């Protein structure tokens, strides 16, 4: 079979173009939207925690968590209709069980440690969620593992060095950072 250099170049361009289109399509189905949505939840939630007081903050977090969960399920279903992974389907229940157990372990840790203020509770929640994210990333996709590390580091830095503006710090750098990362993934892919 004979292929000229110009034909080879044309074929390679077509391959690269399709690979990019596929990645963009998959990304738009879930990855970047999830990051942006989580970032918005953190941005609004932590801003409210910084500037509002009382039970209204709890309600805002509950509302945001419900909205985030619904969005996650919708995106997951949308993604599953297009691309599916037979290897992950049988262990979907185990993933659900893992997160359930992680939540229970997190509650147990908080009850045992008896945190003295909201910041400590927030740090416990962030650490457990990021631990779960790291576990998911390590088990299923190395490409999605790394962002949990800077978010955890930012949270620890804010907690220890900037306690007075900890929630604002988490809103802007944690939430804003996730939004920026989501937009970056979208534009890069």
């Amino acid at each position: 079979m004979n292929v000229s250099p110009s034909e080879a170049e044309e074929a390679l361009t077509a391959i690269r173009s399709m690979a990019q289109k596929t990645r963009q399509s998959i990304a738009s189905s879930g990855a970047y939207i999830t990051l942006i949505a989580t970032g918005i939840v953190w941005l609004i939630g932590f801003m409210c925690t910084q500037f509002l007081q009382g039970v209204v903050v709890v309600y805002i977090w509950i509302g945001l968590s419900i909205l985030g969960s619904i969005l996650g399920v919708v995106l997951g279903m949308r993604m599953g209709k297009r691309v599916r992974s037979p290897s992950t389907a049988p262990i979907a229940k185990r993933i659900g069980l893992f997160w359930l157990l992680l939540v229970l372990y997190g509650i147990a840790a908080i009850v045992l440690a008896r945190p003295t203020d909201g910041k400590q509770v927030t740090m416990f929640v962030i650490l457990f969620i990021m631990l779960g994210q790291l576990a998911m990333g390590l088990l299923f996709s190395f490409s999605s593992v790394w962002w949990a590390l800077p978010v955890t580091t930012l949270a620890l830095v804010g907690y220890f060095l900037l306690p007075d503006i900890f929630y604002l710090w988490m809103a802007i750098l944690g939430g804003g950072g996730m939004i920026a990362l989501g937009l970056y993934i979208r534009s890069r892919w």
Partner: protein
Amino acid sequence: MAELNETIHQTVRLRIMAVLATLEPTDEVDFSYLRDLLEVTDGNLGAHLRKLEEAGYIAVNKTFVERKPRSFVSATPEGRRVFQEHVAALEAILKSK
């Protein structure tokens, strides 16, 4: 030395393999998703998928989702190997220019 593959080199089949090779090895894509991504007709895509399936480069998994028949397509390990070899051969042609 890497070899060109005549079956894969055809434009639509090359683009099909490029899509499937971009996915994780265990992932499979829905027929309609692939059709939309490639911007081809059902008949055209079906014909090219049959050729690739006959060559053993892809696997077509026919199943039911919510009581509707659906076909999911994935690249076989052999298909991925042959595709990578084809890409390497194309790059070698460009380098030798």
